[in-house]
Structure formats: structure tokens, C-alpha cells
């Protein structure tokens, strides 16, 4: 095409979408099961699995911090990307607005998660 081509900045969002998609595909179901069903209902796992001290210790370790951050942030970016595209798909071309809303929320979530994790300390 002769007209000048504008480089898309989609790779950033797409990479985050892909990483989040993969992470949620691999761990999503089990995470939901553990935190949302097994522990509240006392299935399979001891009821105190997520006791304050244990979770705090986990989150204070850099591995735990990293995992929690990755899960929350990447899940959000994955979802934001899909939802943004689905809005486009069903004919809501809110354009920049939708983009700001979707990715904006993901960004806010990411910042809060990062800040909180840092605040919790090591």
C-alpha cells in the first residue's frame, strides 16, 4: 500500500494479553478452586491454609510477591485486551474512550497491586 503506514503499538498490549492468557490457562482454574472453593468450603485443604501469617510470609518472600503480582496484573491485562476487542466486535466503537477504560483499569490495578506488595515489605 502506497500510503504511509503507521506502526501499531499493539505488540505491548498483545504481549501482556498473551502472557496473561497463558498464565490464566495454566493456573487459573486451580487458583479459583483453591481460593474460591476449596478453602472457603473446607474441601481438600485445611481450613487454615490461608492463615494471615502464612499468606503474609508468602507475600513477603520475593517469589510469592512476584507470583501474586504476575497473577493479578497479567490477568487484568489479558482481560482488558479481550474486553476491549469484544466491545469493538459487538459494534461499540468507543475508540479511545474504550481503550482508556479497559487498559486504564488494568493499569490502575497493576499499580495498586505493585504498590501494595511493596508496602507489605520483605
Amino acid at each position, binding site marked *: 500500500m502506497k500510503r504511509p503506514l503507521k506502526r501499531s503499538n499493539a*505488540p505491548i498490549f498483545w504481549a501482556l494479553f498473551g502472557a496473561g492468557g497463558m498464565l490464566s490457562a495454566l493456573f487459573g482454574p486451580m487458583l479459583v478452586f483453591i481460593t474460591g472453593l476449596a478453602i472457603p468450603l473446607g474441601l481438600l485443604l485445611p481450613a487454615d491454609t490461608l492463615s494471615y501469617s502464612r499468606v503474609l510470609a508468602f507475600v513477603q518472600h520475593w517469589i510469592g510477591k512476584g507470583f501474586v503480582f504476575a497473577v493479578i496484573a497479567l490477568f487484568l491485562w489479558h482481560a482488558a485486551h479481550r474486553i476491549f476487542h469484544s466491545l469493538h466486535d459487538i459494534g461499540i466503537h468507543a475508540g479511545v474512550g474504550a481503550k482508556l477504560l479497559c487498559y486504564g483499569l488494568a493499569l490502575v490495578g497493576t499499580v495498586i497491586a505493585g504498590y501494595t506488595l511493596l508496602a507489605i515489605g520483605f
Partner: protein
Amino acid sequence: MAEQPKTIEIEVLRYHPEKDKTPHTQVFEVPFTDDMSVLQGVQYIKDYLDGSLSFRWSCRMAICGSCGMMINGIPSLSCQTFLRDYYPARVRVEALAHFPIERDLVIGMEGFIEKLESIQPYIIPKEPRTPAQGEYLQTPEQLAKYEQFSSCINCLLCYAACPQFGLNPGFIGPAATALLHRYNVDSRDGAQAERMELINSEEGVFNCTAVGYCSEVCPKHVDPANAVNQNKTNSAADYFLRFLSPKGGAK
């Protein structure tokens, strides 16, 4: 003839730019035999029922790529789709989705041709060679890397299957990307970097949301979705790595 000749109903989406504001449907009764393709049904209509019906066709053997139509809502080659698979129910035939209808079953193809022309669909040799020097060596493995993507017949079924193309006709789309990829991975070609600009652009591969239906309907097993999605990875690599490489990747 003892047996009553069988007939099948074919419902055709008609549009005549000189008469109609919008398309409308028309139903024809066509004699039915077991080995008749939908194309043959439509040809029967043209020959004996309504000479004004327009559609493209040529080879009748699923290789020229002209006869794509929506058959009961599914993008199909009409020469390779058989009435027996619908009989005795009615078959609905429409112009390929997502393209402008020029008339009846004929779509406007100029947009696709422009895309095809834009991808530099020819070998830009890594090492030029003259015929006197003989052929390039290319092992069957090297051939296998691109052969599948070179079997695209430009039938455009994949575009009719891709909602992202429907929503944004500027999207370079499945078949053109498959052809672009075909040249990029050909061992004789050295111009991947030149073709990257288009892949990276706003018309490029990131319009694709991996619906995947394009590959589902492709009659030649080209798997255009694979070409598009592989190039997302390539494009993302190009996007991030340009900061590292001194030449800055593709411009």
C-alpha cells in the same frame, strides 16, 4: 421415466445495482441429481430460469478460486459443495460475506488485489542468480516450510469468515498475510525485513483476534490463521528488539 424427477429449492440473494436499493432473496426450483454441485445448480438457474443471475466461476475443480459463495451461511466453494448434502431442504446461497456486493453473487475484489500487491509477493533474492547458474538448491524440508502457504487459491473464503476483516476492511487479512509469510519463509528470499512494515502497521496482523474461522473454512488447508499469528510473534519481536539492534529493525 417412471420416477418423478426430483427438485431442490435454491434461495439466492439477489442484488441489482441498477434496480435495487438493497438485496432481496429469490427462490428457484432446480432439478436435482446426486452428483450436482451447488455451482451446477446456480448454472442451471442462469441457463434455464433466469439469465440475469450473475456469479463468477471457471474451473469447476476447486482450483481457480472464483466460485466462493456463502452456502447456508458458510463460506464455501460452490463447485465443491454438493446439493445432495442439503436435499431435500432448501439451500441458501449468498455473495461472500464482508465484501461489497457488485451484483447478485459477485463481490468486489479490488480491495484484496490491492492487498496482494502490497505484500511484495515475489522473491527478492538473498543471493541473486542467473538461469545459467541453474536452480537454487532447496531441500524438501525447506520447501515444506512454505509450501502450505503457497497453496492459497485466493478464493477469499477466509475473508468472508473473518469478522475482524468485516469490521475493519483495511485489515490486511488472512490470505494476504499467508502469502506474505510464504515469501518470508522461502529459503530463496531475503526480504523479510522489508515486508515487516506492513505486518507491524495498523492494517497489520494485530487486527486479528485469533478467531480462527479463516483456517476452518480454507478449502486448501493453507491455515492462514497460523500465518497471521506467527507474524504477531515476529512483529512483537521486531517491536521490542528494534530498541536493541543498532539498525533499529524495520523502520
